[in-house]
């Protein structure tokens, strides 16, 4: 008999969760309530006796100081009640830990069928709210229909005896697992199967797949194993392995590039090989600190004599666009598994984030699935729970607003780890599988998660069909697994480790089996969340929080005992072999047999046409803009822009200090409220050695030319590192491409050739500038198809493509963190210097965007010129000559002088005459290669000597009062107070917490 326990705060206590809902209802929809209260519901499907239930109620789930609870409905007075619960099969983290608690309390297992389901009942008090209005709140604030369902109750419909009733979102599939064989007698048949099963097989791959099955030796071997026709397990596996996600077909494709301006043509055989792999391998030869790149889950660089660091970046765009919280949570927790699965395993030491979303106050006519405000709230919260509950600091991140991301939001997640250089006397960055090694799956169980997301989302929801295609990450399960695997590593139990990401077991085992030369997998040994999964589903499911390890048989008992201590489930699901094949069995019966060589074989590369029309030929020009008369108000307006203003509310939700490693925090300055150039960590507390990280992206420049966009992003990431104390000798890069579809189609993607050319140009810049700056690309990923089709006012749809976007993340090692510095002005009387040249480069700038222009002259990067004085700046910082250092980035000099003044809570007086051709250009050009520094008067001579030959200009001084004064020779352009600047800069999002 199921039972429903209701828990709520005592009536006299302030209900913070209810108050948040009340505030959001007012802010989002203008609906006023006098009070909102929240009841937590636990529905027990556990077979406990009434006495046990009562004991669990009082001892486990009710805090006698603050809560009341009952197995009868608690709701009394309300004007509307809204119940929200998860759909069947959606990961219920509190339900799972609740069950653990109950079993611990009772001292016995409640059996495999037992479950606790959590849900929430919101009680709204307030007059005059209609059913459509409360429905809007339920749909657009409280519940997301792809993972949750809701029920509304008016007081006259409320039964005080039964309340919301007993709702058990069990998954019942009533399905006998079956292997289906599929005839592929012609190309047309396989094409049809691909469509029916949503395999997304590329037309050009179809004859190659068929040819494999027709080979006589393959047929003979299959007959021996009792196989004939291809099985569904095999075809699903091949489709997974050939997908763009797993195989990066775009970056390995052939691009026919044509510059329509010059008529020049070029063929690029593989963007990955040409623009990423070759320069990185060349640089790795020169830089002994590059330890392991381009083959593992993440790149590895040397940290000190005893440790290496590990870094990678990922995106999780489509799932976050559907379910913002679950998507970004799954994304950040997922990227953490990459360093954990690099070499023989790394401890996670930092997570970084980046969100590209539509404007928070978007009021246009397009209707995305989730309004950007709700979407942003959700993705922020997902990374919050993912990072904080994993005990991994989140020291840096950004949000970038642009309405092109209404079609699909971007969620970037970067993970940094640390691993010993040696384990058991051998290089810890290396790993291998050998015949005879046992395959262990660790962590979560397998359900229908992430299988064919596209088809699943268009299916009708039944009462007991799992809504598993959108996942909710489980940081608690993963944190336990992380602790366990690191101890197993240190004990020498792990021969090989990798994560189950895209493709699930199929890709984790498929890739690891290449080292040994084959594997045998027993699919019936894979622990499931619920019965009834077909064999192919077990094999490709993307259920989260799982890692695959290779363990020598002699280590298996100790490995399993250690897992039990940590409360981590591990299962021996197969073994590695040298058969040359991937052999899957279910209850002793072979259900798939594929030669490893087949998938590594000669599938034809994808082909793209790329046509570049230079910006001037596209009709882009500079706007004709006269000099403003009121520069002070213009600066206020600029500081209040969404992409410039304070977004402190996000950084403060993230624990950036756990592990005790924080040295330069996300927010710096006297008031700890100004974003830092880069973050610095000290991952080993006993050492003074630091890791600096920075991030940069410039999608607006890409509207003019993605070549210069990429160059500007790399240059900015480098300057951000240098500004906090990083070193040019050691900079590693991570490239994360997010691009709209580049496959030309005259109807569906008429500008596909242009977008393909944008991708080519971005890669060319990546190659040129990484070589110029000496940055090996330690890791990187691509996420194509950032497009969406959004309904408008008349139910017509519009294709909205996100701007071509490249996030460049950079990492550097700092020998002694005592060298680090921050951007805040430190002392009155210090001199303010500008380093670098300010050119009329306002194309794609924040200023032009304010006026609705794009412009033409985008900032360009000249490494030959810049690097010479970057080295001088680095030397000056190492010599301790600077009081503060700050790069000049988006918004130009005006914005970044203001940030330095606000950070120091000190005034500034500068003269910009001679900096550029006009005040507007001097103030708002976004030319690359520039720093602002402040220098104590007694250090100026040494500083100027140190900078000999560099484009250096003394702009003015730090003031003792809080006046902010900008002159242009005789003219006073800007006069204001630092406190006024701070007010306008903080105002926009200042009421968010």
């Amino acid at each position, binding site marked *: 008999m199921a039972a429903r326990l209701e828990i709520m*705060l005592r009536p006299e206590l*302030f209900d*913070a*969760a209810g*108050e*948040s809902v009340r*505030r959001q209802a007012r802010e989002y929809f203008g609906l006023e309530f006098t009070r909102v209260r929240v009841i937590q519901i636990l529905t027990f499907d556990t077979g406990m006796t009434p006495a046990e239930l009562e004991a669990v109620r009082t*001892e*486990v*789930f009710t*805090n*006698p*100081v*603050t809560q009341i609870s009952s197995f009868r409905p608690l709701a009394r007075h309300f004007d509307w009640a809204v119940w929200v619960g998860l759909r069947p099969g959606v990961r219920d*983290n*509190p339900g799972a*830990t609740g069950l653990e*608690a109950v079993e*611990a*309390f009772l001292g016995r297992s409640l059996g495999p069928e037992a479950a606790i389901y959590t849900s929430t009942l919101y009680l709204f008090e307030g007059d005059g709210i209609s059913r459509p209005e409360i429905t809007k709140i339920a749909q657009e604030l409280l519940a997301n229909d792809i993972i949750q369902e809701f029920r509304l109750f008016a007081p006259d419909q409320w039964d005080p005896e039964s309340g919301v009733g007993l709702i058990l979102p069990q998954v019942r599939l009533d399905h006998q697992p079956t292997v289906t064989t599929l005839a592929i007698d012609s190309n047309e048949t396989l094409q049809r199967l691909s469509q029916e099963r949503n395999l997304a097989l590329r037309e050009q791959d179809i004859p190659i797949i068929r040819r494999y099955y027709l080979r006589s030796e393959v047929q003979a071997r299959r007959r021996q194993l009792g196989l004939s026709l291809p099985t569904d397990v095999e075809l699903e596996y091949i489709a997974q392995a050939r997908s763009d996600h797993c195989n990066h077909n775009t970056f390995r494709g052939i691009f026919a590039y044509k510059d329509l301006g010059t008529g020049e043509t070029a063929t690029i055989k593989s963007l990955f090989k040409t623009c990423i792999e070759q320069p990185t391998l060349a640089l790795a030869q020169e830089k002994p600190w590059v330890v392991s790149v381009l083959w593992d889950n993440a790149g590895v660089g040397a940290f000190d004599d005893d440790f290496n660091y590990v870094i990678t970046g990922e995106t999780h765009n489509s799932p976050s666009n559907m379910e913002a919280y679950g998507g970004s949570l799954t994304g950040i927790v997922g990227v953490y598994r990459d360093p954990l699965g690099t070499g023989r395993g790394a401890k996670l030491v930092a997570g970084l984030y980046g969100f590209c979303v539509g404007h928070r106050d978007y009021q246009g006519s397009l209707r995305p699935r989730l309004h950007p405000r709700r979407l942003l709230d959700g993705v922020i919260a997902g990374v919050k729970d993912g990072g*904080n*509950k994993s*005990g991994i600091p989140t020291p840096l991140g950004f949000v970038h607003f642009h309405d092109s991301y209404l079609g699909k939001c971007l969620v970037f997640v970067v993970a940094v780890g640390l691993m010993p250089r040696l384990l058991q006397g051998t290089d810890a960055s290396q790993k291998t599988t050998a015949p005879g090694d046992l395959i262990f799956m660790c962590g979560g169980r397998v359900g229908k998660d992430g299988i064919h997301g596209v088809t699943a989302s268009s299916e009708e929801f039944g009462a007991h069909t799992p809504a598993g295609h959108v996942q909710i990450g489980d*940081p*608690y399960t993963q*944190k336990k697994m992380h*602790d366990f695997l690191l101890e197993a590593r240190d004990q020498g139990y792990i021969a090989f480790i990798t994560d189950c990401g895209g493709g699930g077991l199929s890709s984790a085992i498929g890739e690891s089996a290449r080292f040994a030369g084959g594997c045998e997998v027993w699919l019936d040994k894979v622990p499931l969340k619920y019965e009834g999964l077909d064999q192919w589903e077990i094999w490709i499911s993307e259920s989260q929080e799982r890692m695959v390890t290779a363990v020598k048989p002699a280590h298996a008992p100790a490995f399993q005992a250690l897992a039990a*201590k*940590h*409360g981590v489930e591990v299962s021996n699901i197969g073994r590695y072999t040298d058969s040359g094949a991937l052999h899957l069995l279910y209850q002793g019966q072979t259900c798939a047999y594929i030669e490893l060589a087949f998938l590594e074989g000669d599938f034809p590369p994808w082909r793209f046409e790329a046509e570049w029309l230079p910006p001037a030929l596209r009709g882009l020009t500079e706007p004709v803009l006269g000099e403003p008369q009121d520069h002070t108000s213009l600066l206020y307006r600029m500081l209040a822009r969404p992409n410039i203003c304070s977004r402190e509310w996000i950084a*403060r*939700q993230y*624990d*950036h*200090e*756990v*592990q*005790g490693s*924080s*040295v330069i*925090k996300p*927010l*710096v*300055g006297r008031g*700890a409220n100004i974003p830092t150039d880069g973050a610095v960590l*000290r991952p080993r*507390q*006993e050492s*003074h050695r630091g890791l600096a990280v920075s991030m940069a992206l410039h999608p607006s420049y890409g509207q003019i030319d993605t070549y210069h966009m990429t160059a500007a992003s790399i240059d900015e990431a480098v300057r951000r590192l240098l500004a906090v104390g990083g070193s040019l000798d050691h900079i590693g890069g991570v490239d994360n491409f997010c691009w709209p579809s580049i496959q030309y189609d005259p109807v569906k993607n008429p500008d596909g050739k242009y977008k393909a050319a944008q991708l080519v140009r971005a890669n060319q810049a990546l190659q040129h500038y990484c070589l110029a700056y000496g940055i090996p690309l330690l890791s990187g990923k691509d996420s194509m198809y950032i497009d969406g089709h959004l309904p408008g006012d008349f139910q017509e749809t519009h294709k909205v493509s996100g701007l071509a976007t490249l996030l460049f993340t950079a990492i550097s090692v700092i020998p002694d*963190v*005592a060298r*680090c*510095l921050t951007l*805040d002005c*430190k*002392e009155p009387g210090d001199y303010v210097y500008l380093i670098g040249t300010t050119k009329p480069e306002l194309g794609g700038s924040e200023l032009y965007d304010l006026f609705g222009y794009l412009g033409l002259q985008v900032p360009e990067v000249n490494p030959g010129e810049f690097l010479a004085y970057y080295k001088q700046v680095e030397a000056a910082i190492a010599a*301790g000559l600077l*009081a503060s250092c700050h790069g000049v980035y988006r918004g130009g000099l005006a914005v970044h002088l203001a940030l330095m003044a606000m950070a120091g809570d000190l005034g500034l007086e500068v003269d910009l005459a001679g900096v550029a051709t006009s005040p507007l250009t001097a103030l708002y050009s976004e030319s690359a290669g520039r720093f602002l520094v402040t220098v*104590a008067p007694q250090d100026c001579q040494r500083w100027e000597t140190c900078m000999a030959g560099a484009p250096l200009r003394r702009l003015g001084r730090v003031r003792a009062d809080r006046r902010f004064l900008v002159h242009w020779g005789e003219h006073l352009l800007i006069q204001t107070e630092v406190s006024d600047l701070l007010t306008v800069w903080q105002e926009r999002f200042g009421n968010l*917490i």
Partner: protein
Amino acid sequence: MATIKALVLYGFGLNCDHETKFALEQSGADAQRVHITDLISRQVSLNDYHLLALPGGFSWGDDHGAGVILGLRLKMALQDDLEEFIRAGKVIIGICNGFQVLVNMGLLPGLGGVYFQRQVALIHNDCGNFRDAWVHLRVRPTVCPFVKGIEQVELPVRHGEGKFYAPEEVVTALFQNKQVVLQYATPTGELAQGRFPANPNGSLRDIAGICDASGRILGLMPHPEAFISAFQHPTWTRDKETWRRQGLPYPAPAGAGLRIFQNAVEYLAANVASC
């Protein structure tokens, strides 16, 4: 000085164990991380230690009230051992999630000499969200040895459920018994008086940390282990600049949080280590 042995609990979602161990080591203790399973199953004996540290984190995901499940498990498995530990005059510190555990286990505040009964609670922040920010704290007159010689201290808070709540008579008793150890304050040292952000969570009477009647069990929401080196302070680069202008290298002194651990170790060395 006799060796002070400290046990830092870890596992099942706790996550400040490494830096808490490091802080204790910096204070001269022999600190070991011990997995919850090993303590509960008595593979490791609590008796072998002088100091028990319950560090921050999200034990069991904090899903049913922060610290509730770990508190329940420790109470069920180790009630006798814990009573013995306290009787022997040893010390316990619970930081953030560890404070929540102590409160849910009923080791704090232990009014009327009654342990293992919940008398106070730490509930969701009034601001409605997790918050990482540095706060100023004022130390009240107390018997608690952990804060000896400290009047004010700056430390970070990092929590979503840190609002101290108790019925009025309990709060009054805590003040009367000098069991209120730390209160949120303004940068100038005035009490925050409930005002955000100086009081980051809406705690009653600005209470940030309490002890039991003996003073030897301390629970606090701020993280002392996160300020054992100057490099961890949000404005250390400004201090460095002050040194630099005097022509001196930055000494990177110890952070003010270290004193709390040193006090505990010194107290144990003077009072308990021989037993």
